[in-house]
C-alpha cells in the first residue's frame, strides 16, 4: 500500500492482498477503476461501502465518483447476494411469453422482492433485460443454469430443489 493511504475497515486477508496486487498491476491508474471494480466483485462477490472506500483511497478518486460508477452498472452488486441467485429475463420476448408470471410466482412463493434477497439469505431474485436467448423464451437462470421455455411451476420446482440441496449440505 502506498504511503499516506489510511487503512479502512476492511479485514486484511487473501482477497484484499489479491485486490491490492491487481490495483498495483494497474499502476494505481484512475482510469482502471472499472477493471478494479470487476476484480473486487469477483473476489468479494459484491461491493460494500468499506470496499469502495478502500478502492477510492488507493486510486485517489473521490468516493462519490467511485460510488457513481459502481451504481451505474447493473452488473455490480452493492448488497450481499443470497447463497442462490435466480435471474429472470424480462426482455421483450420473454416478457411476452410470460416472464412476469414467473417473477410473481417466485416473489409469492419465496417471499422475496425482485432485486432483493430472502431474510435468511438463501435466495436472491434479480430481473434482467434480454440474455440473448429469445428463441427459448421465457428464460430463467438458476445458479448459472438457464432454464428455457419454462412454466412458473417448473421454475419453482427447480428453485426448491436447488435451495433444498443447500439445506441438506448445511446439516
Amino acid at each position, binding site marked *: 500500500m502506498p504511503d499516506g493511504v489510511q487503512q479502512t475497515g476492511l479485514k486484511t486477508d487473501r482477497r484484499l492482498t489479491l485486490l491490492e496486487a491487481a490495483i498495483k498491476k494497474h499502476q494505481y491508474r484512475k482510469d482502471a477503476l472499472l477493471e478494479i471494480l470487476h476484480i473486487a466483485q469477483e473476489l468479494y462477490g459484491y461491493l460494500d461501502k468499506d470496499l469502495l472506500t478502500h478502492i477510492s483511497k488507493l486510486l485517489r478518486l*473521490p468516493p*462519490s465518483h467511485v*460510488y457513481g460508477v459502481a451504481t451505474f452498472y447493473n452488473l455490480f452488486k452493492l448488497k450481499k447476494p443470497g447463497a442462490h441467485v435466480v435471474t429472470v429475463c424480462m426482455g421483450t420476448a420473454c416478457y411476452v411469453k410470460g416472464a412476469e408470471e414467473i417473477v410473481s410466482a417466485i416473489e409469492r412463493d419465496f417471499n422475496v422482492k425482485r432485486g432483493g434477497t430472502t431474510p435468511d439469505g438463501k435466495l436472491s431474485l434479480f430481473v434482467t433485460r434480454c440474455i440473448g436467448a429469445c428463441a427459448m423464451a421465457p428464460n430463467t437462470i438458476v445458479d448459472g443454469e438457464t432454464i428455457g421455455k419454462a412454466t412458473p411451476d417448473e421454475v419453482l420446482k427447480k428453485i426448491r430443489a436447488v435451495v433444498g440441496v443447500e439445506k441438506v449440505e448445511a446439516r
Partner: protein
Amino acid sequence: MSKTVELTIDGKKVAAKEGDNILKVARENNIYIPALCYLEGVSSLGGCRVCVVEIRGSPKVFASCVTPVAEGMEVITDSERLRRYRKWAIELLLAERPHVCSVCVANGNCELQQLATELGVDHLRVDRKWTNYELDLTHERFAYDPNRCILCTRCIRVCDEVEGVHAIDLMLRGKNSKVIFDLDDKWGFAESCTSCGKCSAVCPVGALYVKGKPLSEVKKKELVSFVMSRRSEKTIG
C-alpha cells in the same frame, strides 16, 4: 491567441473566439437563449435541452451550450419549433419529480419556475411522478431535498471544477438517478465536503439550500457571479 470566427445569431453579425459555444457567445452579445443546466465558468453538460437552437442548413436542433461556433454559421435562437421543444423539456422536468412551488424555499427565485412562466407552461401533458426521497437535514448549514432536484449536475460540476473536491456525484441512472454525497452518505457525514456552499449557490431550484432562510434573502445570483468572476480571474492569470 486563438482564432476569431464570424457568425450571425438571429441576423446579427458577431465575432467570437474559436472553440466557444454558441450560448456563451450569444450571451456576450446580449442575445437571450433560455438555459437551465448551463453555468458559465464550468464545463457544459447539454442535459436540459432548453437552450436548443436551429442552425441554417441543418434539419436538426442543437443544444447551444455544447455546440462550438463555426465560421459563417447562421444561428436562429427563437422559432415556433424551438419554443415547442423548450416547453416540452420544462414540462418533462416538472413531471419528473414533485415540484410544488407553494411549499418550496426557492419559490420566486427558481430558474425552473421562471422558465416555465416564460414559456407559458400552465399545465402538464404527462403524468406527474411523485418521488418520495428522504429530506437530508444532517448538515449544519445546508439542506438537500432530492425531490426538488432536476439533475442539472451544476452542483457536481461546481464541486469538482471550482472547489476541486468532487464530494458530489450522480448515482444510478435514468429516472432513478440521484445526486449523492460521497457514498450516498448523509450530507452532514460526508467527509470530503468542505461546506463551502457553492453547490447551494448554483442550484437553479430549491434542492440544495441554506437552512433557515428563504432564497430571496440569500442573494444567490450575486454569490454565483462572485464565485464565477473569481474563477475567470484565476483562469486568465
